[in-house]
């Protein structure tokens, strides 16, 4: 059977599964629509959270990012996992005890203020929409590359699938499809990783293989350091960024992760406070399976790529691969434009090296090399081409397609739910029409979901120029506004309305201004105030890493303002005391 047919069958089967789950798990109340009736087992919720969290970018792009950044990519590995420790210890159990439906609802109730709730709704919608654009794009790209379907059709099919299970089942439908999607994506990720580790190091466990040795007895990472530095690239395991920036970027990603509403709300779905704690542990177990495999995939794929091209000694006349003799996968990915070669010195061989390194470029010139000839090496190739490089059977390639789609769809659905519940529960029920019946609210939430899917699909097909910047924006917003507000709401009994609002606005505005300063106002090209280079950054802090600073400013502003304004009313202080103890959580649901 040819690859195309096989891919259609595997992807079609997974889609049929998701739709089947949708029919089985329809939502019949707002409680089921928003928080799956708080009946999700903690391990099941852990799995759903992992799928919710791991996006198209985690599945397709992260290993490639690690392959090219080496040690410096550790910020993503630590940042996107360490946030779960904060979530489990500082937020999830208390927010579960509070026992309502959305994150803005907690902020509104705790700070007895519709204004605070509105600020939280705006942060949530901006962060989630920017994030969901990437997922919709991911769906279109996955369809395009594996099924040769036009990008727009791919996005439309993805929208249709999400529509079926998210509109019908809300959080309940999303939860059970996310569990299925987790199984698909983790299987699709680990199978090629196991084979590539086995090929290179003889160890089937990628996490051990990365610390293993090659057939010649040299440690894989030492070999990789050698191979890349021989060609003028920076050593793989060496630190390239400044310590302060790496520190703050890791911290920003951690508190941003803990503050992302679509992740937090997953912990509203478990039956008890104790379940929320343990469920965060399970979520991290399921995430860690992929996140500890990715560094192995990245390092091994990089080594494979370098060794494929640099077949012999650097500088020797026959040390480089003859272009006509390039392997089949190389040709396949050239046709997609992810790999591109240009024979600059006309010798018919491929020279792949760092021509930006002046010292090495001079040396390269003495070999007769006239510049790096791999003019395009897309990072995504490290995961997408892996099964072909490792010569795995076609069904594994088909599985990678289904895995990429599962990762994108599961994250999209979680984000869409966060957006639609903010609209139907926080804006419509909370502000515009408080007297709305449950039946009408359920209808409103389904309509909000359908609307959110349409907007996300439209933006996925017509991505605004800033789509690539979303990571900085979404994490910056979550880190500088939502996370501190939630934390102070739980840990500082005296934190009042005035303090929380001023704090959120301070964190939000400083972070946004810092991002816009270097990336253009609202990301319009040409409006940046200074070039986005380390020399211009304040103390060498990149815009992506500023969220932690924004959070600190939020804490400081909120504390000062709360000290000089009236303390929160008695019943709010009782509310805080109440969410700090697990007892009575079941009752809190019936509000």
């Amino acid at each position: 059977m040819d690859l195309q047919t096989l891919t259609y069958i595997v992807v079609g089967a997974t889609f049929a599964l998701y739709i089947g789950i949708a029919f089985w798990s329809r939502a019949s109340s707002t409680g089921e629509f928003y928080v799956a009736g708080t009946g999700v087992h903690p391990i099941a919720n852990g799995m759903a959270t992992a799928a919710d969290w791991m996006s198209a970018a985690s599945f397709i792009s992260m290993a490639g990012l690690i392959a090219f950044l080496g040690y410096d990519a550790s910020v993503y590995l630590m940042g996107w996992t360490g946030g779960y420790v904060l979530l489990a210890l500082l937020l999830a159990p208390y927010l579960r005890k509070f026992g309502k439906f959305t994150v803005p609802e907690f902020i509104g109730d705790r700070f007895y203020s519709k204004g605070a709730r509105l600020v939280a709704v705006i942060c949530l919608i901006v962060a989630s929409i920017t994030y969901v654009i990437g997922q919709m794009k991911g769906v279109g790209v996955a369809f395009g590359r594996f099924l040769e379907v036009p990008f727009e059709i791919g996005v439309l099919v993805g929208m249709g699938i999400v529509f079926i299970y998210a509109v019908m089942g809300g959080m309940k439908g999303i939860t059970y499809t996310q569990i299925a999607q987790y199984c698909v994506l983790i299987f699709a990720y680990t199978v090629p990783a196991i084979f590539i580790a086995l090929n290179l190091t003889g160890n089937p466990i990628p996490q051990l293989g990365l610390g293993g040795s090659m057939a010649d007895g040299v440690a894989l990472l030492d070999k990789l350091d050698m191979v890349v530095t021989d060609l003028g690239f920076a050593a793989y395991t060496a630190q390239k960024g400044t310590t302060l920036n790496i520190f703050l970027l890791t911290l920003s990603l951690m508190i941003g992760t803990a503050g992302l509403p679509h992740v937090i709300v997953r912990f509203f779905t478990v039956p008890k406070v104790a379940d929320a704690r343990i469920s965060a542990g399970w979520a991290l177990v399921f995430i860690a399976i992929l996140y500890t495999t990715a560094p192995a995939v990245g390092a091994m794929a990089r080594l494979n790529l370098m060794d494929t091209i640099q077949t012999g000694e650097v500088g020797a006349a026959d040390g480089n691969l003859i272009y006509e003799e390039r392997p089949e996968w190389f040709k396949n990915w050239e046709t997609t434009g992810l790999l591109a070669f240009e024979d600059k010195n006309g010798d018919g061989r491929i020279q792949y090296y760092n021509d930006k390194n002046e010292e090495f470029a001079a040396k390269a010139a003495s070999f007769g090399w006239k510049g790096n000839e791999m003019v395009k090496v897309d990072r995504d190739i490290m995961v997408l081409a892996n099964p072909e490089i490792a010569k795995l059977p076609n069904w594994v390639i088909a599985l990678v397609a289904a895995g990429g789609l599962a990762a994108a769809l599961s994250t999209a659905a979680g984000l869409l739910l966060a957006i639609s519940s903010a609209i139907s529960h926080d804006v419509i029920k909370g502000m515009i029409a408080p007297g709305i019946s449950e039946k009408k609210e359920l209808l409103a939430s389904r309509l909000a979901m359908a609307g959110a899917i349409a907007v996300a699909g439209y933006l996925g097909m017509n991505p605004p120029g800033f789509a690539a910047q979303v990571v900085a924006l979404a994490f910056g917003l979550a880190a500088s506004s939502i996370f501190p507000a939630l934390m102070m709401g739980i840990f500082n009994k005296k934190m009042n309305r005035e303090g929380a609002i001023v704090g959120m606005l301070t964190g939000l505005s400083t972070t946004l201004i810092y991002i816009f300063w270097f990336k253009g106002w609202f990301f319009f090209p040409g409006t940046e105030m200074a070039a986005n280079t380390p020399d211009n950054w304040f103390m060498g802090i990149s815009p992506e890493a500023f969220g932690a600073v924004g959070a600190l400013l939020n804490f400081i502003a909120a504390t000062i303002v709360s000290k000089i304004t009236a303390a929160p009313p008695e019943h709010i202080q009782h509310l805080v005391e109440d969410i700090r103890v697990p007892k009575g959580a079941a009752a809190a649901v019936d509000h």
Partner: protein
Amino acid sequence: MSEQRSRQDYWKANLRLMAFCLSIWFVVSYLFGIILVDQLNAISVGGYRLGFWFAQQGSIYVFVVLIFFYAYRMNKLDRQFDVHED
């Protein structure tokens, strides 16, 4: 009043446990994985340099263990102070 008192003690015990867990969280990621990474890279464990291992593997394993440890200890505290559910 005594219930009030016991709840305060429960909260203090929780904060102590949190501080302990978060200090380990800080040490394995920020200290071992970032600040001291060069010094630790002088030590090799198998084919890994220790600092690099903490940054790309070790810290994540410790994070997982930390959450389960915290959950386990909190369940015990919940019962000890009689604030557990059901």
